[in-house]
């Protein structure tokens, strides 16, 4: 096993209230690269990414089994505090969700919660710069974050996530609520960020996955004929260039060619 990996997943199963959502996922997320998770709706992409920072714990009835190793340590081991886990892993959501506070307070929220003692101004500026937002907001840090445009809000959420200095950023369809120009800026930002962070992105936009990612994981649904239960499985996980030029599995081929959705 390559210890360089940020995440190492083995036999991951997710159930919600007894109904299976994801079965038998094995994959590894390497550092400083972008991994995309694609698949038709309802195949468990969001469930998978939420396992990486134990956000699934917040859903009542969610049961996660299997191993998720973060730099070699199982984050689902007994006695592990999910709050501590989440401090090391950043997350950005589909719809920009800045707090109804000032821009400064949004970025400073994470560090303050974690008892940061150093120069907060410097940390806020650094995070906003890395999120390619500093130039646009440096003169209005005290203004409400809600006054920003959708694309700016999303970059603010990215700044907020990286302010706690994680080494991996999870993104659940980060650009799907944004217009095309804002989307391109987020994608460009991801290329910059991957120099320092591992990025895992869930996207239903295949072209985005093709453009942006280094590796792609394709999830697909399996159905139990008798019970009509549906759950997601990992069908193929490979370099993005291979997935989009010569995928191994016909299901992958059909999906990326748009033969079903």
């Amino acid at each position, binding site marked *: 096993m390559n210890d360089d990996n940020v995440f190492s997943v083995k036999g991951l199963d997710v159930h919600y209230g007894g109904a299976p959502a994801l079965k038998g996922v094995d994959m590894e997320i390497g550092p400083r690269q972008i991994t995309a998770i694609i698949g038709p709706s309802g195949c468990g992409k969001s469930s998978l990414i939420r396992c990486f920072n134990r*956000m699934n714990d917040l859903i009542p009835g969610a049961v996660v089994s299997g191993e998720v190793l973060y730099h070699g340590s199982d984050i689902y081991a007994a006695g592990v505090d999910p709050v501590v886990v989440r401090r090391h892993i950043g*997350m950005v959501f589909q719809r920009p969700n800045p707090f109804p506070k000032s821009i400064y307070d949004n970025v400073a*929220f994470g560090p303050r*919660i974690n008892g940061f003692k150093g120069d907060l101004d410097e940390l806020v500026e650094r995070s906003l710069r890395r999120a390619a937002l500093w130039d646009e907001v440096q003169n209005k840090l005290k203004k*409400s974050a809600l006054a920003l445009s959708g694309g700016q809000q999303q970059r603010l959420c990215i700044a907020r*996530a990286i302010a706690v200095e994680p080494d991996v950023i999870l993104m659940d369809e980060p650009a799907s609520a944004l217009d095309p120009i804002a989307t391109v800026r987020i994608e460009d930002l991801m290329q910059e960020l991957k120099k320092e962070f591992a990025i895992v992105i869930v996207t239903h936009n295949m072209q985005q996955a093709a453009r942006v990612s280094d590796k792609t994981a394709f999830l697909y649904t399996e159905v139990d004929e008798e019970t009509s239960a549906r759950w997601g499985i990992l069908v193929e996980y490979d370099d993005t260039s291979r997935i989009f030029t010569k995928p191994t599995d016909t299901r992958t081929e059909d999906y990326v060619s748009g033969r079903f959705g």
Partner: protein
Amino acid sequence: MSAADVPVPAEAGRTSGEVSVLGRRPARRRVWTDRLATAGLVAAVIMVLVPLGLILFTIARRGLATISWEFLTQPMPYSLRKEGGGLLNSALGTFLMVGLATVFSVPLGVLAAVYLAEYGKKNTLAGVIRFFTDVMTGVPSVFVGLFIYTALVAQIGFGALVGAIALSIIMLPIIVRSSEEMLRLVPSELKDASYALGAAKWQTVSKVVLPSALPGITTGVLLAVARAAGETAPLILTALGSFKIVTTLVGEPISALPLAILSGARNPFAAGQARAWAGALELLVIVLVFTILARVIASRSRISS
């Protein structure tokens, strides 16, 4: 598309060879049903507004005659027959008791709401709390007065404190339920964002959920205050009423505006009655100010989000 481009509809009731896509004018019958319905609704609204309007008008007219600087700053005269004087003691009593009641009920109510919205959610205890809170909103306020009388006044006598406790029992359910609603309205995405940053539950609640719900909670509190300021029945049995300006909390009966209005209205002397009307106007203004303030805060918070 200019007016010249709009095809002219055929006359209603007339058949013509070519009928434009935009159709004829609506049939006669439909227009009249529409107008009848509108008229009916307007009439209903007017009927509702009339008594309200009359109340406001009457109070204003009668009260304005007696309102003066002297009125607002002088306590009640010992002889009810006397003219002049004011309701300062009652106004102070209202402020004191309502203020205390707010201090008691707001923290308790908001924390209970936090429990219901964030921690208890669907469990049995939360269900029980909600049920009893709903029941309490419907309890006649005189029952509250009776209860406090038996429980406390019989032991420690009439006074501001027991009056405030009675008022806080009235305010509590309102604050709990409205605060719970406001807390529930905070989008779960904000909580997700907070958790994802590594915040524990209490940190999320205190630093994200409560601040976001604050405008809504404030509205609920102000409305509860307005309600408490006008309560009479519970105060009859706990504060009792007085002529003096009272500052002690226990053992000394104290006046409040609703009490003063009641006793003044019962008064055979014109002077007493005049003061009652003025008191009614003063109370009305206080209630209106709080209610309007609540609405302004509510609408401003909606705009900013």
